[in-house]
């Protein structure tokens, strides 16, 4: 097996085990989807099934995945730093970025499980079937979306390595994403000036595309338009995180402050 792949797998497995030992992660992964899904369902209770699937199920699924990523992937750097392991990981014979990517993949796998928990909870508790008009396209969107979330998580972890003040910002990332990406309501209800901000966030397009698949795609041009945005942004985030990890590599050697709290 390729050495990088082996590192990737063992790093993800270790990350999943470590994450499960933290109560905050257990909350984000298991309890949060239930409570958030319940809250959204109570709000959307008298709306039609399509809206419940679009805003309650997809909304709570995406916010659960986001919670897992923002609180864990981004926080991992800080945890390693506090445990004094950041320099060790950085100086390991394997590439730092590959180890971090493994961690993010581990979190994304658990985050995907969290998405499934939130959907299953609504289906089982309230008897709302999860039906899709275009399941095949949804599966494709889902895979691209997961890749996009992985890229975001890598970007966040890179930012956190470079700037310590990002740690404080991380705690305030939840609501801007929930608002700007239209997790629980369509972005059309937001003021016009916020739309460009929504558009540069890939979860916005992931949700729009997901909702199109729930409803049935009537306008394929619009579908392609958002799909291109989703793919383009994922590509852009990937380029950015690759760049950040190069900057980290240089800065860590220049300033020797990687492990400084």
């Amino acid at each position: 097996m390729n050495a990088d792949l082996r590192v990737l797998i063992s790093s993800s497995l270790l990350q999943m085990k470590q994450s499960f030992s933290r109560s905050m992660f257990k909350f984000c992964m298991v309890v949060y989807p239930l409570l958030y899904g319940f809250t959204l369902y109570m709000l959307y209770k008298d709306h039609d099934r399509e809206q419940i699937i679009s805003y309650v199920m997809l909304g709570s699924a995406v916010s659960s995945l986001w919670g897992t990523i923002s609180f864990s992937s981004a926080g991992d750097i800080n945890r390693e730093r506090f445990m004094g392991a950041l320099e060790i990981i950085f100086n390991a014979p394997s590439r730092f970025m590959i180890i971090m990517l493994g961690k993010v993949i581990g979190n994304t796998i658990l985050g995907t499980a969290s998405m499934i928990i939130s959907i299953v909870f609504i289906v089982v508790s309230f008897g709302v079937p999860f039906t899709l008009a275009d399941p095949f396209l949804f599966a494709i969107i889902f895979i691209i979306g997961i890749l996009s979330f992985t890229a975001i998580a890598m970007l966040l972890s890179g930012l956190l390595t470079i700037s310590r003040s990002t740690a404080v910002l991380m705690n305030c990332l939840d609501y801007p994403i929930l608002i700007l990406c239209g997790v629980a309501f369509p972005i059309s209800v937001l003021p016009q000036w916020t739309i460009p901000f929504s558009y540069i966030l890939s979860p916005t397009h992931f949700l729009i595309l997901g909702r199109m698949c729930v409803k049935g795609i009537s306008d394929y041009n619009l579908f392609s338009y958002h799909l291109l945005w989703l793919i383009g942004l994922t590509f852009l985030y990937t380029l950015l995180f690759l760049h950040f990890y190069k900057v980290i590599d240089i800065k860590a050697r220049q300033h020797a402050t990687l492990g400084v709290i």
Partner: protein
Amino acid sequence: MKRFFFQSYISFKALFGWLNLEAYLLIKIINPLLQILFFSILSKYVFQTDNIAPWIIGNSILLSTKNAIYGVGKVLVDERNMGTLKLIVASPGSNFLIFAGRGFMHIFDALITVTVGLLVGFLFFDFSIAMSNLFLFAVAILISLYSAMAIGQVISCLGLVYRDIHMLLNVSEYLLIILTGASFPISRLPLFLQGFSRFLPVTRGVEAARMLTSQYDLIVLLKLLTQEFFIGSLYLFAGYFSFKLLENLSRRKASLDMY
């Protein structure tokens, strides 16, 4: 009483001593601001109405639960972690005043957050309250904050016996969001949960504050506020007696500082 105020102040200062101004502003001003924006937009969309005053009031008061849960709810665990819990227990001063004092300053700190929430409503969602009702509105908010801090005291005792403090705090926050009727009408909850809502603090305070945005019956309003105060006090005493119970247990088992 002088000691009570001093203790409250010192305890509050110690809890937030690690925070700098930047972190305080982000956590206490920016995050609540975003939370209220999120729930206001959501309520406006879901209920398809321009009059979202009830939801702005409910969610603003609900912001105080951040103080109640993450501030007051963690206070005893923090004391234990810092090694000062045994000093509180052994203190010759009134244990009740020391216990109650741990939540006192949070009422005023939470008031800042609630005001931020209401200001967001005023600036972005045309929320207003008649000048003539302003005093009663402030009383309703203060009583709600008092009872919110009281449930924080109960949670802080639970934190001494339950190891998974983060889980406890986060679940408590969401349960208050769900069960107090601040974010959606209690009538939407399953029947068995509606019963729980009536025994929770904040529920009646939110209901009373909401009444002040339209025509209201003063007798009903005062009754709700009295009940809210009574429930808050009940939680405060329940917290105190739990604390004493744990103190007795720890004296017997010598496990006060163990976690």
